[in-house]
């Protein structure tokens, strides 16, 4: 248990280490990224074990969602690092002779990464990739709700990295608060919007910039399809994204589905079929279902269903086992829009389907609610796609698939409004942990005399022409051939 004094001393040491310049060079950054790769490779078994114990995650799910995804991201960063670190020249107008301008990326200094429990390895290390690639020192605070993962990170991770530059601090919300009282150069927080407000308020004390990766109710708009193959794939992807991404406990999991009322029977059948195909006849026996994280969240989810007006709307599933923290993949049809299940982010394996008269009404439905982290749309109509793109706002917008945007290195991953601020992944990770410094180099040889007082009308004319890049005008005024207007 860290005392405040120890913590502040440690942080001061890290700041001094940063100031020594050790983390700036490309070779240090490469060594850290390679250390991460080695950690993922050598500790894979222990990572799978920890995730199985903390969340009941199957190793292949753990590989697919965390270890594999991280491996891809580290390799991408290693490939791109030199390019990311290089200065970029900025165009200058002709008048700026003997001058160069460029944007130079530099690290911010000492940054804090606070991650969460649903993807405890993935959401801890993905930001770490960017922070280290950008040359910072990092403190990582994993979630106490996944203690085996937290312990693994705290004990094993620093041995693969530069232990003076990377520290993992375990603990609960008290530790979190203590960390937030310190001065950081950046904070990246993944979690709920309630805690995010506290993080942002704490950051305001020190004028610390933040990235907030929050959540929201990610809807699916399900249009009609002419081909049955497409319908099958759509149903498969939606049921997978709801029930198999940490049992629905993911910020980009499907929260609810909007479908036109005349197609509801067809879609319901398809989804029930796919639940069987993914999890077998008896989902409770399926190896492939993660647990609900703890009793608190189990109770929260149970209470969403216990509302009598909601309970009557269950059309599939509903089985619950508190001792095993298991909830059967459950589908509901048109629960009341004011009920908690339709107001709060579900974060669990309960899937409300809301019917609308015309699928176009879903645009109004979504845009009258807080902006989500992602909107998923299954449609073959180009015009509908364009309307959704123009008339809704969300962190990301995915057509005909779900969740996969998480793996795209070239797309920014982040929210908007209640779903967050800032972005990362790929180069966006590097940029978010960097300061892009504007640098202008001039010569002392040449100057324009009209830059300096004492002022007169002619100098004003010359300056105006200069600012307009009106080179001809400049010349004429200088030659006395043009007069003040």
């Amino acid at each position, binding site marked *: 248990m860290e005392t405040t004094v120890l913590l502040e001393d440690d942080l001061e040491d890290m700041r001094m280490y940063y100031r020594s310049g050790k983390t700036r060079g490309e070779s240090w950054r490469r060594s850290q990224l390679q250390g991460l790769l080695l950690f993922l490779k050598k500790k894979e078994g222990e990572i799978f074990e920890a995730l199985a114990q903390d969340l009941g995650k199957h190793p292949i799910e753990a590989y697919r969602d965390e270890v594999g995804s991280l491996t891809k991201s580290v390799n991408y960063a290693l490939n791109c690092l030199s390019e990311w670190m290089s200065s970029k020249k900025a165009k200058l107008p002709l008048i700026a002779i003997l001058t160069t301008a460029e944007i130079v990326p530099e690290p911010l200094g000492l940054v804090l990464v606070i991650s969460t429990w649903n993807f405890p390895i993935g959401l801890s290390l993905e930001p770490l990739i960017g922070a280290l690639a950008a040359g910072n020192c990092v403190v990582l605070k994993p979630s106490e709700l996944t203690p085996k993962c937290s312990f693994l990170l705290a004990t094993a991770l620093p041995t693969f990295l530069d232990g003076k530059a990377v520290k993992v601090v375990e603990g609960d919300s008290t530790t979190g608060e203590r960390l937030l009282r310190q001065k950081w150069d950046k904070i990246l927080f993944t979690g709920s919007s309630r805690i995010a*407000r506290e993080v942002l308020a704490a950051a305001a004390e020190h*004028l610390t910039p933040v990235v907030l990766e929050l959540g929201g109710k990610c809807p699916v708009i399900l249009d009609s399809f002419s081909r049955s193959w497409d319908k099958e794939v759509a149903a498969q992807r939606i049921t997978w994204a709801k029930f198999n991404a940490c049992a629905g406990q993911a910020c980009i999991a499907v929260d609810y589905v909007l479908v036109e009322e005349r197609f509801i029977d067809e879609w319901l059948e398809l989804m029930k079929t796919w639940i069987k195909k993914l999890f077998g006849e008896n989902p409770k026996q399926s190896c492939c279902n993660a647990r609900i994280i703890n009793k608190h969240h189990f109770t929260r989810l149970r209470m969403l269903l216990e509302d009598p007006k909601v309970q009557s709307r269950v059309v599939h599933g509903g089985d619950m086992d508190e001792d095993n923290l298991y909830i059967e993949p459950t589908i509901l049809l048109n629960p009341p829009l004011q009920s908690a299940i339709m107001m709060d982010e579900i974060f669990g394996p309960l899937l409300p389907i809301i019917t609308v008269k015309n699928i176009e009404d879903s645009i109004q439905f979504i845009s009258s609610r807080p902006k989500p982290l992602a909107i998923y749309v299954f449609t073959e109509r180009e015009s509908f796609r364009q309307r959704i793109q123009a008339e809704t706002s969300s962190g*990301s917008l995915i057509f005909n698939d779900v969740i996969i945007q998480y793996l795209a290195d*070239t797309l920014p991953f982040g929210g908007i409004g209640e779903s967050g601020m800032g972005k990362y992944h790929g180069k966006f990770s590097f940029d978010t942990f960097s300061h892009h410094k504007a640098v202008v180099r001039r010569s002392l040889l040449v100057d324009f005399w009209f830059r300096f*007082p004492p*002022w007169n009308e002619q100098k004003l004319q010359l*300056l105006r022409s200069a600012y307009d890049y009106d080179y001809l005008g400049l010349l004429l005024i200088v030659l006395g051939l043009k007069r003040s207007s």
Partner: protein
Amino acid sequence: MGSDATAIFDAEAAQTMMKELRAVYGSGATKSYDWRVSQLSQLLKLIEYHEDDIAAALRSDLSKPDIESYVYEIGVLKSSIKLALKELRKWMSPEKVKTSLISFPSSAKIVPEPLGIVLIISAWNYPFLLSLDPLVGAIAAGNAAVLKPSEISPVSSALIAKLVREYMDSSTIRVVEGAVAETSVLLEQKWDKICYTGNAVVGRIVMAAAAKHLTPVLLELGGKCPAVVDLNINLQVACRRIIMGKWGSNNGQTCVSPDYIITTKANAPKLIDALKTELEKFYGKNMLESNDLSRIVNSNHFARLIKLLDEDKVSGKVVYGGKRDESILKIMPTILLDVPRNSLIMKEEIFGPLLPILTVDRLEDSFNIINSGTKPLAAYLFTNDKRFREHFVTEVSAGGLVVNDTTIHLGVLTLPFGGVGDSGMGSYHGKFSFDAFSHKKAVLYRGFVADADIRYPPYTRKKLRLLQALLGGSFLTIILALFGRN
């Protein structure tokens, strides 16, 4: 209905205003290219037709010399609007990005969209520039906006309110005048972004208020911008540029003015002489009477500056200037030598016509002095030594750096203008303004054709091998995995 300048702007008025703005924004009015172009064109007209009024307002509020008004506020604003008009289509168009094998077949792009309703709170030293330049970005990005100009430059604030009401679309762009009460009421509302230019104390208040609504902020603050002066340079040219950045920029009341100088003990006397010579060439012998220098904005700031100057351990360090006239709120250009590091004038941002010079034995020591303070908005170096120059660029962290000049980087619209650490967060100017007021939405299109069921349960070893190959990278391993080998 524009804002009535005499009505009280209280919580109710604020909520009504927000409701009206949200309704119009929600209708999509501000998203079209045409709306943005028309508003930018109106803004250009507003400035071009009222240049003299603007200069007169600045003369009244700040005794700003006309040339500074025409060049730094009007000239820069016009460049900014013209650039936005020229580039808008390009800025608005989605950016295609590459996709990888993992999501095959797919295509992806990044689509810029407006944030919504933005609040722009500006400072008193460049009242037109600091309210209207962010507005250019807000409009270009398709947002509705509310401006809150500073009450410390009241004539400018009133003129901004009047001109915006006259020229701009008042259903989407408003001005709220007032002081602390009105600003607090504004800060209680839910904005989609807040842009604040001012000092770090209020910056914290703005960010704390924004935190309640998870509103992102752009903070343009200040800091003590150092200027390091080397030996063996053309001192005359260097001093001219330092003078322009300091006294030629609203008489030192500029966030990027060189706050203090660091030079070697040997160099200091020559530097001081050169500064004195050039100062007198620019402003004459009787500087308190020069019309080419802004005055101190008000008696509060005048008193603040006198306190810095008259502090016991500092007053004896004046080597040039020091004369002041409270009745006209003028302090002449003043240079001090080797004030103690713990004096007030070295702890606070000066924001006025006082220039302390610190001397060191070796110029390399200046890096420690600069890096031991909070990161400033800008840092300057005058040198012909290439190696020293590059060392400075690497070692000194600031919003922006200029070698052999001061402040001009603000005019380079291809460079981001913003701070780091205590000097601010976020940046703007040029395309960075458009980006600051946009949300870059990731859009991914997938086909139905090929779907590797490897991501779905039931999980099998073969699926795991394929996943490893796909995520691990090499094409060969993917082929091998497909054919069942390890």
